[in-house]
């Protein structure tokens, strides 16, 4: 019996890692093939000629040369989206309602982590930290962000959602939108009262800004270097660690079993002696902490945050959750990675292929257009709503 549990636990760790690898490689390979075919089709077109006159390369070389960097950026962004999307999908799985305040939970985590790092920076220990110390400080910031976000999520659930649990489904939704606005302005108010600032910038420390050169592609001019920033690696590693951890909690622990049973049938679960309120609060804690950690990682990657920083990533993560099949943990992961990749590809190539008529500012339109097409053919998302195992 004991050995069986162990094997089960190992399986729950290896399985999501395998899925991530499949999703990343699959989405990356598929989009790369699409781009290669497109670039071959576009040979001799106006876009090709324009590239040859301005930069002296043909469109095929250009596409291939940029491909590795685009893939790396897409994966990084995808994992951030996936980490946020899990918060939406977990709550939906258990309560069948969209927690629109999750984007602000994300922003709150970003602020808590950044403020913590700024305080550390004020004492001067960040600047001198070398070796592994910066990673320790970042881990601490992640924990602070997770605690702030997780705590707030639980508090919101208790104050704004639990009293409305029996109400029609639209009511908690409106409540969530209200909470979202309230949180935005609470962050703004707190920041302007305490620091007088609108923007907060994460301090520079450690070797996160350094670049690890991977390889370089020889072109007719100077070779194009492909490299990855240390912080991108950190973001990917941290997100992977959290996703695996969450999967383990939900699928291989007692409390995870309780979450799944509450998701399946709340009243029967209560009859079986499961404290439903406690489990729902725990779900919010898990989802909120993940969102908070994603906020800190987002701040690390993109350096600047403001009180409204949650809106776009939150919107996209929600979309990712729907794309993958809402209520489905694996689906959120897939949706996040696909959306991150799509955005990265569209942003990098759209301008070139349309000769500058549709620049990268249209990347969201293209990404969402593909999303609409997917939803038309698969209304319940790529992997479908898993009714038997929603959370």
């Amino acid at each position, binding site marked *: 019996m004991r050995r069986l549990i162990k094997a089960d636990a190992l399986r729950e760790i290896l399985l999501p890692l395998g899925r991530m690898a499949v999703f990343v490689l699959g989405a990356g390979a598929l989009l790369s093939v699409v781009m290669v075919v497109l670039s071959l089709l576009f040979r001799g077109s106006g876009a090709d000629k324009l590239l040859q006159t*301005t*930069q002296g390369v043909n469109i095929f070389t*250009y596409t291939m*040369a*940029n491909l590795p*960097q*685009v893939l790396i*950026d897409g994966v*990084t*962004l995808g994992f951030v989206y996936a980490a946020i999307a899990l918060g939406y999908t977990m709550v939906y799985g258990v309560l069948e309602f969209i927690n629109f305040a999750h984007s602000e939970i994300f922003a709150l985590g970003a602020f808590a982590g950044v403020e913590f790092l700024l305080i550390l920076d004020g004492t001067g220990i960040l600047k001198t930290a070398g070796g592994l110390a910066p990673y320790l400080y970042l881990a601490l910031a992640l924990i602070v962000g997770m605690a702030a976000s997780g705590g707030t999520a639980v508090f919101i659930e208790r104050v704004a959602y639990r009293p409305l649990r029996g109400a029609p489904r639209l009511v908690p939704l409106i409540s969530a939108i209200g909470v979202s606005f309230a949180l935005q302005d609470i962050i703004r108010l707190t920041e302007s009262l305490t620091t007088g600032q*609108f*923007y907060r*910038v994460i301090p*520079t420390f450690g070797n996160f*800004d350094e*670049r690890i050169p991977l390889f370089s592609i020889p072109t007719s*001019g*100077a070779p*194009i*270097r492909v*490299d990855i*920033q240390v912080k991108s690696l950190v973001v990917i590693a941290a997100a992977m660690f959290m996703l695996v951890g969450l999967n383990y909690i939900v699928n291989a622990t007692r409390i995870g079993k309780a979450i799944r049973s509450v998701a399946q049938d709340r009243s029967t679960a209560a009859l079986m002696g499961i404290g439903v309120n406690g489990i729902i609060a725990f779900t919010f804690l898990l989802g909120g902490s993940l969102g908070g950690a994603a906020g800190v990682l*987002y701040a690390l*990657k*993109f*350096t*600047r945050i*403001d009180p409204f*920083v949650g809106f*776009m990533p939150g919107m996209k993560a929600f979309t990712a959750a729907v794309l993958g099949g809402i209520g489905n943990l694996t689906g959120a992961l897939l949706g996040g990675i696909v959306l991150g990749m799509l*955005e*990265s*590809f*569209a*942003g*990098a*190539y759209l*301008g*070139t292929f349309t000769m*500058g008529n549709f*620049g*990268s*500012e249209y*990347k969201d339109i293209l990404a969402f257009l593909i999303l609409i097409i997917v939803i038309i053919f698969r209304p319940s998302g790529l992997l479908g709503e898993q009714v038997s195992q929603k959370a």
Partner: protein
Amino acid sequence: MRNRALWIVAALLAVGLLLAGCGGKKEQVIKIATQSPLSGGMSAVGTDIKNGAQLAIEQLSGPLTAMGFKIELAAFDDQGNPDTGVANAKNIVSDPAILAIVGHYNSGVQIPSSEEYHAAGLANVSPANTNPKVTERGYLEVSRICGRDDVQGAVGAQFASTKGIKTAYVLHDKTAYGQGIAEYFKRESEKLGIKILGFEGTEEKANFDSILTPILASKPETIYFGGMFDQAAVLFKQARQKGYMGMFLSDDGFDSSDAAKIGGDILLQGAGTYFSTVAGPAAAYPGTAKFQADFKARFGSEPQPFAAQSYDSAAIALKAIENAAMAAGKKVPARADVAKAVRALKDFPGITGTFTFNAKGDLEKAKYFIIQVTSGDPAKWAENKIDKILDIAPPQ
């Protein structure tokens, strides 16, 4: 029930009208309105536009007070948003006590809002709006004391050319201001033989990865950003972190100490960061030393860019109201007369220059600056190095 509710509303309205009527007669209050972003990302500059005008009203309304008027500031928050600006403008023109408006930081907000001022004949003196369209519409009510983007964009391109730059990648923020200036930069660059490798707009504020990939692949010698610092500084920072070592060039939207807060020392690396502006740092104007000291004493911080211009705009508004009131026999002047009085000023001495407007509302000669960022410390933003000062007349 419904009838009763109507009666109550009618009664309340009647009382309100009576009160309003009484108020107007008892006190001769003249208000000067300001519109600038007081909240949100551009509030640092926007608040000091309001504060500059407030200081001018406190210091310079003596002659009007002597005539028995009470001068008040009515500050409006346009949030850098055209919709909010127009809604405020409707409130402003419906308040008869407001005789002039100092305002707007963003051209994209000023242009639609000033349609309302124009319809109401209300004088608008702009401290910071550089889009050509601001004055090209030929409205008598709209005047500005700063330069224009068609000149500013060209000044940027000429500067790049003197630095020996041969290739540039141009980005803008898709607003009337940012896109406008980027297009003028592009036009002049092409005339000077600078190759434009790309021209793109973006509203992205955080993640510039996918925009930067094609830019870095095309290896421009300079990246030009037409727009505000809150995008530009993040873009520049991420470009440097991706290993770009060329020159960054931007416009007067970059002129905020928050740019240094976001970008930090990264702005100084490689070929450095430069921006053109129509409002030089305090050191460029000998007359601003007293203003700076007064401002710091009154509001507790160094004035942001455009605060001194706002002070001058309010001073012009006050002088025009004073002249119009004198002409009207020390009575509250009509709005149209104030607007005419603004244009009638000749060689009005302000702290950032002497001002005479042409028929369109542009200054007969405006100053343009090229500034090099020399410190990553936001507190030292005002000490940035002035690379060049040019006096240029607006195009006819």
